[in-house]
């Protein structure tokens, strides 16, 4: 159930160039949140920002909800400057998260760049459910690698400076025949998601993708955050942000 709450930032730190990890306290949201869902937040005090900004939930620890984000514009820049102890206004948890089913034997996670953000939460949930998972994480180079506590990942970098040389999708593809009754969960830049969706289609693997978009309301009222589905436009905030990859029209250009 959607809540709107004033929450206090309990920790906020820079973990990589332009990348921040924030935690805020909300026992109710923490109890309800599921992997793939997001929170829509703004500073409580009036300021130059107008709209809220959506962030996928990175993980939940006790009463704390974590978000991990890269500073990409005015909103994230302002939010990154909020110190521990600041009160923020949070709407959440919003959207549909990943659907976890025991009908699969191996749960394969693909994260590209900042797409790592929701995957840590998912990996934790799968582990808690004692489900077998494989984690592939890729980024452009070693210095862009984000700290991620999930052990046993396969790492890929575009320039080969760490782990597998090439895209995360290549690393995944090279092992694809080894998976037993797999399902794929992916989050990352549009070209990576498109490639993942195509590979999964060719290999008849079910695939769920987490998308992002500029948003206003976050609840499906304004129709502002749509992407093209195979039949019609779909709202990332309400019908997503996690979709079955077969529901999305991968020919479109990403708006971001």
């Amino acid at each position, binding site marked *: 159930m959607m*809540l709107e709450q004033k929450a206090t930032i309990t920790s906020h730190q820079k973990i990589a160039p332009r990348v921040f990890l924030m935690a805020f306290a909300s026992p109710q949201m923490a109890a309800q949140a599921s992997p793939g869902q997001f929170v829509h937040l703004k500073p409580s005090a009036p300021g130059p920002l107008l709209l809220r900004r959506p962030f996928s939930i990175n993980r939940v620890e006790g009463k704390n909800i974590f978000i991990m984000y890269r500073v990409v514009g005015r909103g994230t820049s302002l939010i990154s400057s909020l110190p521990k102890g600041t009160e923020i206004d949070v709407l959440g948890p919003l959207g549909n998260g990943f659907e976890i089913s025991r009908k699969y034997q191996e749960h394969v996670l693909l994260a590209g760049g900042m797409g790592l953000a929701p995957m840590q939460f998912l990996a934790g949930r799968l582990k808690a459910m004692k489900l077998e998972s494989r984690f592939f994480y890729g980024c452009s180079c070693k210095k862009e690698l984000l700290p991620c506590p999930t052990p046993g990942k396969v790492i890929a970098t575009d320039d080969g400076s760490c782990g597998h040389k090439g895209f995360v999708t290549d690393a995944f593809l090279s092992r694809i025949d080894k998976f037993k009754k797999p399902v794929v969960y992916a989050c990352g830049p549009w070209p990576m998601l498109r490639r993942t969706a195509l590979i999964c289609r060719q290999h008849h693997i079910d695939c769920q993708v987490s998308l992002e978009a500029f948003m206003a309301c976050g609840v499906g009222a304004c129709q502002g955050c749509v992407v093209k589905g195979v039949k019609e436009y779909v709202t990332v905030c309400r019908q997503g942000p996690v979709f079955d990859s077969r529901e999305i029209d991968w020919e479109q250009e990403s708006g971001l």
Partner: protein
Amino acid sequence: MKDIRTKNVDVSVEIAGIKMRNPVLAASGTFGYGTEYLPLVSPALFGAVITKTITLLPRAGNKPPRIYETPGGMLNSIGLANVGAKKFLAEKLPELLSRHPVVIVNIAGNTMEEYVELAGLLKGRPGISGIELNISCPNVRQGGVAFGSDPVQAARLTALVKKAIDQPLIVKLSPNVADIAAIARAVEQAGADAISLINTLYGMAVDIEKQKPVLGNVTGGLSGPAVKPVALYNVFKAGRAVKIPVIGLGGIMNSADAVEFLLAGAAAVQIGTASFVNPGTVKEIVNGLKDYCLKKGYSKVSQITGKLAL
């Protein structure tokens, strides 16, 4: 602590024969079909909920991105995406009515004939307290603001729709016109029972890295606090030109903003962008209006309307 004397302030209003529990309405396109914000915000908290624009046939809307924040405002180019009249009447309206709000349906069409046919479908429908005529959408190629920028066309369409319905008709006007008073007078003479303004202002934003427009539709409509002075000006000008009630909107974020519009001549206000930022804005504004009345010695919120000293 809440001043208990605010209980004695009557915030109800009657506009064009539509009785509303308060003068704060949900602006079309910003509150969906009225139930999206549940359980957080009930549609019954508003004086009336104005639905997303409904068209005769479903509309997919414009190419994304459709939303972008600009200083003090937001651009949108939704393009009247909606489920169409049939699905609206069969599914969305009953769902909304189950929450017991006052419902006003906003309508648009590509041609005058489409507007009239749609209006005919809404005539006599239980639960539809009024119709808001959208002749001011900046994001569609046909219809929309094309009918709203010419007094003759606006009047003709108003008269045709008025004849096709049995509910009060509110005509929603665009600020993207040379003479707002002329349009307001034209639709009043054609039979409008009230006017609402402003719809969004034409606007755009450019991505300098990609050297492309930010919005998929290239241009959009600007809303939010940035447009409030423009909205107030238009409400003031239009209000002085007509005798029918004026509903003011454009960048209202709090009760002080709402009071400004009421003083400038509005009988009620609509909130839109504010609901995205703070879904509970409606409650804050209604409470703030009560406090203002108490401070000024008014027993009814309607006493604020037009009190502007010149």
